[in-house]
């Protein structure tokens, strides 16, 4: 994970870092590795976008760990929004023919609660307004 430049270096560029994490990078990681990677990014003030999202069990642990790290005036928690991918589009042809397992792949956007002013989702768009404070 590249180091954030927006919050660590007061003389660095003024902006918000967005980490787009591929499914390939996540696929061999253990649950806690994924959660640590996400929360380290969010603690640095970054917006983290996961190509493949998390499983329900991982989402449950993400909430649990997030809660354990909330601290007054330092970290208020996360905003999270998820897009389930179209079942038709992300199933392989073979999978569709064989009636295999539905893909749970989903795009997920996670950011620091104190910096994301709004995180809105409609049927085809996730929209985040990010403050630099």
């Amino acid at each position, binding site marked *: 994970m590249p180091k954030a430049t927006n919050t660590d270096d007061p003389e660095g560029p003024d902006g918000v870092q967005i980490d787009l994490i591929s499914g390939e990078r996540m696929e061999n990681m253990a649950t806690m590795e994924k959660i640590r990677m996400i929360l380290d990014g969010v603690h640095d003030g970054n917006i983290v976008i996961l190509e493949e999202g998390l499983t329900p*069990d991982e989402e449950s642990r993400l909430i649990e760990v997030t809660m354990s790290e909330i601290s007054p005036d330092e970290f208020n*928690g996360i905003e999270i929004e998820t897009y389930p991918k179209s079942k038709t589009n992300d199933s392989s042809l073979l999978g569709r023919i064989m009636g295999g397992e539905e893909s749970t792949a989903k795009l997920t956007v996670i950011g620091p*609660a104190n910096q994301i002013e709004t995180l809105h989702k409609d049927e085809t768009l996730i929209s985040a307004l990010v403050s630099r404070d």
Partner: protein
Amino acid sequence: MGLFTELKDSISRVTDRLFSEEEPKRIGIYGPPNAGKTTLANRIARDWTGDAVGAESHIPHETRRARRKEGVEIERNSKSVEIDIVDTPGVTTKVDYEEFTDEMEEDDAIRRSREATEGVAEAMHWLREDVDGVIYVLDSAEDPITQVNTMLIGIIESRDLPVLIFANKIDLDDASVKRIEDAFPQHETIPLSAKEGENMDEVYENIAEYFG
């Protein structure tokens, strides 16, 4: 099958049933903050045991620790179930102590937010480890399609836990039970007002039927 084997199987089935019925089911009451979970838990506990579970409040995160009321036996239409009600803090992904400073001193607000975060973490842990079924409470005057609700319902489904969705606060003018039914059509939705005691017969019928 011989008479002796048949008799042995029959006794075994009855014994299994008796033992399984002796164990109360741990039913977790989950949902977002301020959906009326504690009001519902208190209503159920008072109706069947005479005691309340905990304090109710309009301030979010009044319930900061899960509270359990054990041995609540609910009977309806010849069905019965003994449950331990576990009232949990409202699940959220963020807690800001400054939200409470209008209502209390800063130190108290910080303490409340710290207890709330620990309570939510515990509630999530128990959802994975410690509950046999879930009553998911939603405020029917609010939009049910939030990320937390979607995630929690997904987590519950992934664990194959039986879940009943309770559309609470139907006494409010903006209430829409259909909005909740449409959001989670794969689950039974029961309308109620825990505060006013509306439709509690149907609530108890469903609990006895579904978790019994």
